[in-house]
């Protein structure tokens, strides 16, 4: 089970063949939102979990569903929007200010609204900005209840601002006139974790294969492979296994 953003970025298509050659473990990717991925894993439908929502992940491990959790890699979030930048977020000092400008300008903001890692991140940013976007839900705050790609399709088409992870954006094909308008704030850091599912809770998991795969990812070879993945000459993920 994995989050969608990694799949859409093409990381697996690049990584898995290398991995399989190294370890002989064949990996199948089921890409769903982080929330669904965790739930599915609780049903024991998955051997390894690769997601990005640290608190939920830690809860998953504490409750005994996962063996352990390890940081794997990170990338960062960016805010994209129409080139004309009606809210002038490009001139914001930090991400909080960027959000405030969006709210004030009356421009639209497309949110995933699906409890995904990205969505949780976005909500925490609104909270930090002291704005309750729910009051504008359906007017300027558009909760698409969809994956990153679908939300980008909606946002781009409606000239709305969207918070997205950089990897998905770089590989996204339907950019139209949208572009990255704000990036670089430290709070836009996005950590991915990896959790093998606990064989005590779920006797049916492929424990050996899961362990091998998880270990390979955090190994030097795996980390180097992640770091080497590029799209359009840009590195998408930054390995930081601890």
């Amino acid at each position: 089970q994995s989050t969608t953003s990694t799949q859409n970025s093409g990381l697996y298509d690049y990584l898995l063949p290398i991995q399989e050659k190294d370890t002989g473990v064949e990996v199948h990717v089921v890409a769903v939102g982080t929330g669904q991925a965790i739930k599915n894993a609780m049903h024991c439908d998955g051997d390894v979990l690769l997601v990005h929502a640290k608190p939920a992940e830690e809860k998953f491990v504490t409750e005994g569903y996962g063996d352990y959790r390890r940081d794997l890699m990170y990338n960062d979030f960016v805010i994209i929007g129409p080139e004309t930048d009606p809210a002038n977020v490009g001139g914001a000092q930090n991400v909080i200010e960027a959000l405030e400008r969006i709210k004030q300008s009356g421009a639209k903001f497309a949110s995933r609204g699906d409890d995904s890692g990205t969505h949780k991140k976005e909500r925490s940013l609104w909270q930090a900005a002291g704005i309750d976007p729910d009051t504008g839900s359906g007017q300027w705050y558009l909760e698409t209840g969809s994956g990153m790609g679908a939300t980008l399709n909606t946002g781009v088409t409606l000239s709305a601002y969207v918070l997205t992870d950089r990897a998905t954006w770089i590989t996204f094909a339907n950019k139209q006139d949208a572009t990255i308008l704000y990036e670089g704030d430290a709070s836009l850091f996005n950590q991915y974790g990896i959790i093998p599912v606990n064989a005590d809770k779920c006797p049916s998991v492929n424990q050996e294969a899961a362990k091998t795969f998880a270990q390979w990812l955090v190994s030097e070879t795996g980390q180097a492979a992640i770091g080497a993945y590029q799209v359009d000459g840009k590195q998408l993920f930054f390995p930081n296994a601890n």
Partner: protein
Amino acid sequence: MDALSEAFRLIITLDADLFEILLLSIRVSLIALAISAIIGLPLGSWLAISKFPGRKFCILLLNALMGMPPVVVGLIVYLLLSRSGPLGWLGLLYTPSAMIIAQAVLITPIIAALSNQVIENLHQEYRDTFYSMGITGRRAVVAYLVDARYALTTCILAGFGRAIAEVGAVIIVGGNIDHLTRVMTTAIALETSKGNLTLALGLGAVLLSLSLLVNALVIGVREYAAKRQYA
């Protein structure tokens, strides 16, 4: 099942959000159905009784279009309605109207193909008589639709079923935007992606109940009319 109880709690407490979504679902599906019926029934009927070189191929095409993937329909409508598309100036994308259009495109072939089959059967019986009475064109189409009305309700219900259950197309052109274009199926998909499987199931049960209700109404009216006619 706590999924059901949660769903029914929402219903019983008249949860405003749920009702908004339900209402939009039914409104979009029924309008799309009406459009499709107005186009599909005469089309299917006309294809059953007319004779022209490409007729067989048209019927074949309708049958094939029953298998048109909703996502593809969604995409086509999306491209038509998107700002850079030919109908972009209408500003319909991500509105209920867009969803209605997508659904109508999706179910018109279904209603046309199924009604075509129904009318073709009746045509075997009526053909000679209608020919003899010189009944052709519009009058024949209308007569067939009227006389096959009971069997046609099943075609229409099949269309309704497809519309109300449909998610792939409406999510693309509607965007599943809360308080704007969120319908039952997209809400179910959302809850599923959130991992709230029981709530998703509960919503599914509500949607099915709704669908059952509509079917019961339609079939009830049909039975009543049939009884009155042949009492």
